[in-house]
């Protein structure tokens, strides 16, 4: 199992390096159109062929990988911070604030995740600039993804609030804010870390789903979601067009594999 985890981590590192330094594998920018060769098959010049606009699929895949692999952890970090604030305060303060937060969490969790994403994305402007669409897509995923993590953080903070260390700190005259900051949240760090790591693959898949449904990152900026779109519309897609789906499968599997101890503990 340890060997498999090291292998998965190595593979993730290789994909990340290829995404951060795409020039190592291809020299074409992601938006350059080779007008004389649209829908070109796999060749030495185009290792994954070209799309219907003549853009190099490999360079688009590498740039798309960079966006997904950098923006998904950023979104996971934001949602973990939100979960820590809401869950931490709810679990620590208790009372009406806790009940209000629990009602909010229940409300968020009562709606299917993809449905919630689709609905809220639809309420925001759809004709955004490509760069802004990245921010909106991943920001939305982060803002809507805190609820399940907040529930776990709340439970952890609730048990820490009644623990011996918190009682001793209260007896020693420490103000509640300091107890929360110095004792409760640092002790809830393993839960937060596990939630962060569990969120990354979920957010990658969420972006892929949104992009495939036409509500994600806007063209010409590539992302795993919008790179999968041609598979839906093409009558008989080129086998190389499936590469983004294979890469998503590979990367998300590796992410799950590297975090297996936390998942098993959960």
């Amino acid at each position, binding site marked *: 199992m340890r060997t498999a985890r090291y292998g998965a981590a190595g593979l993730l590192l290789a994909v990340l390096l290829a995404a951060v330094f795409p020039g190592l594998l291809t020299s074409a920018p992601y938006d350059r159109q080779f007008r004389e060769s649209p829908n070109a098959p796999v060749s030495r010049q185009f290792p994954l062929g070209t799309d219907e606009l003549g853009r190099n699929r490999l360079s688009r895949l590498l740039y798309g990988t960079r966006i997904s692999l950098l923006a998904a952890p950023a979104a996971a970090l934001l949602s973990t911070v939100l979960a820590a604030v809401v869950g931490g305060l709810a679990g620590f303060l208790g009372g009406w604030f806790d009940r209000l937060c629990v009602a909010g969490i229940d409300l968020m969790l009562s709606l299917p995740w993809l449905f919630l994403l689709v*609905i809220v994305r639809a309420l925001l402007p*759809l004709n955004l600039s490509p760069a802004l669409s990245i921010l909106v897509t991943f920001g939305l995923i982060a803002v809507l993804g805190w609820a399940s993590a907040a529930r776990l953080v709340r439970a952890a903070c609730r048990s820490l609030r009644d623990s011996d260390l918190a009682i001793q700190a209260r007896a020693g005259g420490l103000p509640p804010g300091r107890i929360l900051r110095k004792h409760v949240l640092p002790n809830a760090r393993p839960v937060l870390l596990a939630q962060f790591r569990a969120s990354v693959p979920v957010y990658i898949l969420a972006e892929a789903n949104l992009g495939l449904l036409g509500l994600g990152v806007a063209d010409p900026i590539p992302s795993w979601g919008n790179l999968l779109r041609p598979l839906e519309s093409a009558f008989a897609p080129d086998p190389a067009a499936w590469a983004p789906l294979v890469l998503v499968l590979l990367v998300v599997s590796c992410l799950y594999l590297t975090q297996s101890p936390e998942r098993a503990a959960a």
Partner: protein
Amino acid sequence: MTRPKPTAHRSLPAWRRMGGALFRMAATALAGGLLCATMVRFSPGFGLDEKQLDPSLSRETQAAIRRSHDRERNLPRFYAGAIKRMLVGDLGTSVTLGRPIGELFAERAPVTIELMAWGIAGAWSMAALLAIPAAALRSPGLGGFCTVLSGVPAALPAAGMAILLFRLGASPTCTIALVIFPKVYQYLHNLLRQGYAMPHVVLARAKGLRARGIFVRHVLAPARPQLLALAAVSVNMAFGAAIAVEAVSDLPGLGQLAWKAAVARDLPVLVMLTLLVALATQLANFVADMCSPAAGRPA
């Protein structure tokens, strides 16, 4: 900071528990609808009507259109009006399709319900088929094989899997089943593994009790409340998957309606769908709670 009070809700009479649960269900669904209506009200482009750009309409007509939208700007009035109309069976009209929303729901709901029902049944069958032997035999090889088998669909986006299976000629039901299966398998496997590790189960096995008897009486029976909760969560997961599957497979269900309404920003449909979905998932949780054997037991 107060000491937690002992909860007495378990010893309440059944009708009060049921009433409380029904109230919570309605309150959550209404809060979901209100939240969505609030977002709709403050979303960019709210209250704009392309008819206002039509030069063939008279000034009076355009003023009347403007006034009708002005009324919607008051959020409490907008939502109260929508609830009032809903109570008499009028869910409003779809802006893009130009048809009553109630009619659209009635037409499309059977497609989604059938898809979800078969999908959930398929996912549970697959999960049970793998989780029961993996937990009972405790074989690392079988456990690893089942984990890999359930890990592959878990690592694919639902819409991507829908396209892949659509290209392979599989039915949309299979896709829904495969989307839900990994989560059901993981939870079921953990639950059964814990059940088989209980000291009385280990003792029963050591004494040579029949495997079926142990499974039904000592492993499955205590896990019933969690299994019912998982069944309720499956409904939630199945609807999420239905959006992607129906959109990709061009199936005229509620999932496809949600996607089309989102792409076309058909806001009345989105509000009503949110209310309907929140109500359906709350209802599933309510039924699971009521069926749970722990529900009637005093604490």
